[in-house]
Every structure is written in structure tokens, then in C-alpha cells.
């Protein structure tokens, strides 16, 4: 009979990655995704903590190539908003893995719950920067969602999980549906081959809707970004970002046709300090004039 001690040991052999022969020591489990598990490990050579993404050993070949591609993408995208990869290889148990910087911080949605809208939109702009950088390198993330964005102690953002990212020019079979339903553009849900940067614009629009408030221009930006027809969306993440920046600066946004009252409200809001000073000055003058006449 296999003893209880041996049973636990064998189960551990099956479940935990075999890091023998590597520079890493397993510390704990950080999270689990569809095809891989992320572990906290210690890099014994450089004496620092790293995150190890290890492919489950029950996955098929397509997942294996996806992890390899993800590591290559991360190695290509050197940007402060994209987690850097340190190492890639195969463990003694045959599983592929890559080592990346250990990300400290909170998931975007949890972080946002305790922040004002200005801070939230600031983080959103930084997410756009990272995604736009990837697009400039021909890479579409395709799975942007709050769970895949971490916000650090100083508000820095890191876009994670590039496991289903698509590289421009790389052939892909139509009918393959990958992503998270609530954040997927309609053409992505349909598994179309034409999925491009505008699918990320859609996901960012959905994220923006969750981060913003009820002000009409902001809602209009999110609505434009999440248009069902990709042609009605912002043509690029930069265009989306620019509109959000204009909103934050109190300027008119391209996605929203202002009424006169909207215009007055926006101008008053933007120049509220100056208007308050002028009004205070006028009130003072009025007061002095009244006193003189008495």
C-alpha cells in the first residue's frame, strides 16, 4: 500500500512543477489561469523573487506554443507598462515555463474601488500607453480586462497575460474564440480572422465604462469605443487615449456632440476657479458701491 506520506508526496510530484536543475525554488502559488499556474519563486542566483508561469502538464500542443509565444512577446515589448520576462525554458518534468518580474500591486478593479475618478482615468491612460506600444509592435492583446491589469503602489500599471495575444501577420484559423466574454468585441466572439487592434479598443472601452463616472462625455467615449461595428470605434488606442485626455483637461471630446447647456457646464467646470474669483470680485465691488451710497 502507498502510505499517506508517499501519497501526498506523489500528489505533490503531479501537481507542483519540478524545479530541480533550475536556479529557482518554489515559494507559493500566486494564481491559476486556463492553461498555466503562476508561482512565486526565489531566483537563487540573483537572490530575488520572481514569478514563474508554468504550463499545466495536461494541456495540448496549442497551449504549449501559446506559452512560448507569450514569452517571446514579453521579451519583445520592453515597456514600463508591460511585465518584463527574465527567462524561458523547460523544466525537468517536461513543462514549459517562463520567469518574469514579480508584480506587486492590486488588480485594477480592486485598486479602483478606493480611488477618485481622476486617479482612475490616469491609470487608464497608462494602460492605453502600454497597449498602444504593443500595437506599434504589431501585437494585439485580445484579453484586456481588469484582472489582467495590476496597479502598483505608485499608480504604475502593468498589463499582464499576453497568452492569447495575436501577432500581426501571423496566420490564425478562423472560428477560434479566445478571450473573456464581457470584454470581447463582437468580431472576436464570432471568431473572425479580421480581429485587430480595434478589439483591444473595445476591451479598453469596457474597462473605461467601469472606471469612469456618469458624465456624458465619458460615457460617450466608452460607448464609441465599444461600438458593435469595429468601423464605428476609435481607429486606434491613441485616438481613444486622446479623447480621454481631452476630457480630463476639460476640453470637448470627439465622441460627444455638446448642447449649449453642456458647453456652458463644461466651460464653467473647467474655469471654475477663475469664474469664482471674478464673481467674488464683482460681489465685493457691489458691496462697496452700496456702502458708499449709504
Amino acid at each position: 500500500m502507498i502510505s499517506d506520506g508517499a501519497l501526498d508526496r506523489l500528489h505533490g510530484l503531479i501537481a507542483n512543477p519540478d524545479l530541480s536543475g533550475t536556479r529557482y525554488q518554489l515559494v507559493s502559488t500566486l494564481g491559476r489561469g486556463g492553461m498555466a499556474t503562476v508561482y512565486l519563486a526565489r531566483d537563487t542566483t540573483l537572490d530575488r523573487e520572481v514569478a514563474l508561469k508554468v504550463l499545466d502538464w495536461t494541456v495540448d500542443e496549442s497551449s504549449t506554443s501559446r506559452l512560448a509565444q507569450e514569452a517571446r512577446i514579453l521579451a519583445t515589448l520592453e515597456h514600463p507598462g508591460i511585465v518584463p520576462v527574465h527567462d524561458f525554458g523547460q523544466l525537468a518534468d517536461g513543462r514549459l515555463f517562463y520567469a518574469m518580474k514579480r508584480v506587486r500591486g492590486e488588480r485594477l478593479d480592486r485598486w479602483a474601488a478606493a480611488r477618485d475618478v481622476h486617479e482612475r482615468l490616469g491609470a487608464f491612460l497608462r494602460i492605453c500607453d502600454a497597449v498602444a506600444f504593443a500595437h506599434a509592435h504589431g501585437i494585439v492583446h485580445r484579453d484586456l480586462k481588469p484582472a489582467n491589469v495590476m496597479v502598483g503602489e505608485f499608480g504604475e500599471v502593468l498589463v499582464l497575460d499576453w497568452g492569447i495575444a495575436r501577432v500581426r501577420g501571423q496566420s490564425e484559423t478562423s472560428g477560434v474564440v479566445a478571450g473573456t466574454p464581457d470584454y470581447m468585441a463582437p468580431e472576436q466572439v464570432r471568431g473572425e480572422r479580421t480581429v485587430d487592434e480595434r478589439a483591444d479598443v473595445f476591451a479598453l472601452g469596457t474597462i473605461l465604462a467601469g472606471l469612469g463616472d456618469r458624465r456624458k462625455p465619458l460615457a460617450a467615449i466608452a460607448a464609441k469605443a465599444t461600438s458593435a461595428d469595429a468601423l464605428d470605434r476609435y481607429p486606434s488606442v491613441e485616438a481613444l487615449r486622446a479623447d480621454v485626455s481631452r476630457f480630463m483637461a476639460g476640453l470637448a471630446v470627439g465622441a460627444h456632440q455638446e448642447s449649449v447647456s453642456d458647453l456652458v457646464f463644461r466651460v464653467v467646470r473647467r474655469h471654475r476657479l477663475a469664474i469664482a474669483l471674478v464673481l467674488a470680485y464683482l460681489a465685493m465691488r457691489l458691496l462697496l458701491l452700496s456702502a458708499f451710497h449709504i
Partner: protein
Amino acid sequence: MSHRFANYNGAALMAAPGFPGTRHSVIASLGSEQPDVRRAAFDALATAYWKPVFKYVRLKWSATPDEAADVTQAFFLRAYEKTYLAGFDPARGRFRTYLRTCLDRFVANVRQENRRLKRGGAIEFVPFDFAAAELELQRQHIGDAVQELDAFFHREWLRSLFGLAVDRLRVACERGGHARRVAIFERYDLADDESTRPTYAVIASELGIDVTDVTNELAAARRDFRRVVLEVLREQCATDDEFENEARALGSPRDL
């Protein structure tokens, strides 16, 4: 105890790299029209489940060892004759859960009707060594198992699964000229507890080899063991979906 395995080709162990594809499923063969296939599937099923069933009946139904042995024999016989395990619908859950539900219903009916149990007759299953199973049960730390029978049954199934995998690994290694590899694996990874577990250096000294050889052989044995576990698991699942779910559950990170 001797085992007979359905459609197992031990030579495939060393050749097949990585993830096993769609393989023969014992569960799917339970309802086969071909008597030989069906019989082989039942043998494999009984081999995998007789011990968890026996121990479960002992605990859940507070059965005496003799009664639990009778029930276990009769349950598999009845399942074979009436083919009710072939009625398993993978869309509705795990086979393991279905089997346990059938077992509970079977024991309840037997007790209610005070029925005399049929223990075999013309049909001879794989040998069930109930005395050994009872001895194991006595040695096991049962603790809260009676309150947590789901977990107990799962753990016993896991013990059986790993036991089958170790048996296959041993056969395949010996056939492939790697007897030393499996010996090292058994000495190190199957040690009862940490106090009896030898170091690599001790094993190397015992076998007159380098510590590096122990490391390499153990790594190879573990790699093969993982592969065999998947193969055995695949045979015990009715569909690829069930297998994927079971394999993912088995591969869930353990406490470090």
C-alpha cells in the same frame, strides 16, 4: 496481488512524450457489445475501484470486514450483469461520484431487503485481497474520515490510481532495462515518511553509483510516473472533457 489491465501496452510508456492524446477509455467500454472488450473494461474498473469500494463500505455503512467483502464482490458482479455502470452520463458529473451513488443505493437495497449476496459464481473477477485491504484500513489514520466520506473516497481512489501507475511504471521500466530507475523511485519517493526516506547519497552508496546518477534516474522516473498517471486516469474517464477536468483537478497546485 495480480493485476490484469485492459488494452495496456507497457512499451508505449517510454516512447510517448508529453501529453497523452485520446486513448482507450475503460468507462466507455463498459457498455461494449463485444464481450471481450466489456470484460476487460470491467476487470480494469474493478482493479481500480475494489479497494476504495471495500474501505468506503466499511466506514460509511459500518459494515464488518466480511460484510464489506461480500458487498464489494456482489456490487461489481451486479454491475457487470446488469450493466448499470454503462448508463453513466459524463455530462452529469464524474464517474467516481456516479459509482459511489450506485454503490450507496446498492448497499441500501441489500440491507433493506436483507438479501443474500451473490459472490461470483461463473464470473471470476480480478483477485480481491480483502484481508490485505482490511489490514491497510486498520493501519490507516482514519480520524475524521467518517465525517468526510467524500474526501476519504477520493483519497482512496487517488491511492489506487497512483498504485496502478507505480505498478505499470515498474513493469515498463523492467521491460525497458531501467530496473534501477524504478528502484530508486520506490526507495525515495515511496518512502513511508520523511524519517525513513534516504538521502540521494545513501541511495548512491547502496547502489554503488554517483549521486548525479540518482538525480538523473529519479528525474526520469518522475517524468515517466506523471505520464503513466495520466494514461491510467484517461482510461478511467469516459470522455476527453471528463479527463481534462480530472487531470486539472489532479494537477491543482498543492500546498507548498
